[in-house]
Each structure stands twice: as C-alpha cells, then as structure tokens.
C-alpha cells in the first residue's frame, strides 16, 4: 500500500463523514459544518497529490488549496449570515420545522 493510497482513503473517509453529517443533521449550522468538512477533505487530496505527484515544483496543488481555503472562508461567512437572516424571520435554524412556519 503506497502512502498516497492511505492519504486518499483517509480523505475519502473524511468526505463521507462530512456528507453523512450534511445529509442527516437538522440544524442548518451543522449542515454548513458538514460542507466545510467536505471541502477540507478535498484540500487533503490536493496536498497529497502535490506531495507525491510528478511535478511538485509547479506548486499547483498548494495554490489550489490556498484558493480553496479562501473560497471556503467566504462561503462560511455568507452561509452563516444567510442562516442568521432566516433565523430572524423564523426564530429557528431547523431545516425540518415541527409545526408550520408562522406567516
């Protein structure tokens, strides 16, 4: 088993953890955390391929990861403010309201 394979399997497992959380939690904040975990798993893949790839001097994997971290930070800020705006209207962060939303 090459080291790259173990990194890829770890990354796939982290992606599955994030996907399971994003699909099965009720709170929208938790769903956002799951999406962040999936983005991080993809970053680990980029770094592992950069480390074991044929042309590490090209720095492509590192650059992809840096830009991906920046996009993920922007996504977290916008996502949380959307959740906050929804919370102000419905007083809840649940994705499955138990009763009908008050209109």
């Amino acid at each position: 088993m090459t080291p790259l394979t173990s990194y890829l399997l770890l990354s796939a497992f982290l992606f599955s953890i994030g996907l399971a959380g994003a699909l099965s939690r009720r709170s929208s904040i938790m769903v956002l955390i799951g999406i962040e975990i999936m983005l991080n798993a993809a970053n680990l893949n980029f770094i592992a391929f950069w480390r074991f790839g044929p042309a590490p001097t090209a720095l492509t994997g590192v650059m992809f990861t840096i830009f991906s971290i920046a996009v993920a930070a922007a996504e977290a800020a916008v996502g949380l403010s959307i959740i906050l705006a929804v919370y102000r209207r419905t007083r809840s962060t649940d994705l499955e309201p138990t009763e009908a939303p008050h209109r």
Partner: protein
Amino acid sequence: MTLVFLILAAITILGLGAAMSLRNPVHCVVGLTIGFLGLAALYLQLGAQFVGLTQVLVYVGAVAILIIFAIMMMRSSESPEQQPYSRSWRVGVAIAFAVYCVLGWAVHFGAHTLPTQAATPELSVQQIGDALLHRFVLPLEIIAVLLTAALIGAGVLALQDPAGEVRGPR
C-alpha cells in the same frame, strides 16, 4: 504508512466524527477544531508548511470562531430536547457509505496508476509568493474581488434589521 500518519489520521477522524455526531452544537465546534488541527498537522507532515499554518489561521482562528458566534447569537447552544438528526438520517448515512465505497473502490483499483515519489519536495514561502504574483496572479485578483464581495454581502445580509422592509410578521 507511518505511526505519525496513523495517529494524526485517528485524531482527525475522531474530531470530525464527533463534530458530526454530538448533540450540543458547542461540543460539535470543539470537535471540528480538533479535526482541523489534525488536518493542519497532516499538511505539515506532507511538507506543506505554509498551507498547514494557513489552515490553522483561517479554519481554527476564523471559521470555528465565526460558527461559535453564530451558534451563540441564535441561542441554540443548549442541547435541544428534540432529535438533532433529521427524520431521514438513515438515508443520508447510507448515501455517505455508498459514496465512501465507490471512492474506496476507485482508489483501490486505481492504485497501480498512482505516482509514487518518495522525496519530500522543497517548498519555501518565497516560491509561493513568486508563484502567486507571476503564474497565479489572475486567480489571486479574482479571489480578492470574491472576498470583498463576500464580506460586503455577509455584512448586508447580517445587518438587515428585522424592522426593515423585509420583516416578516410574527
């Protein structure tokens, strides 16, 4: 596969697994922070020091704190009495397991085509700066515009007063 990798992988999996399975949202964010620190250590182990420290700065220092603030602002830090998982959580876990099986199958049967380079590549911050300002200068500008737009958009969305014109009756 070294012992260091196994320990860091165990820390990361435990932290992120706790982040996705615990009931109290604040405990979830603590688990998330531990998982992000484990990932940063994995980046350091792979020889990408700059990315590892960026991971600590951005994810542990900014995103986790942002999520903590959001949880506190929405007064959901206490454990909810109702189920924290949705009614269809079994389907979600089954889908995630199927995705893991497909990814693991692809990695397992494609392992002989993967590159195997043993030597750790040299990476200095100066190289990253050169690459950012020469080859990757257009993505850098685009990311700057994107971050500015996201900052303004998040501010506009979050500062929208409930007394404004978008207020819904309660």
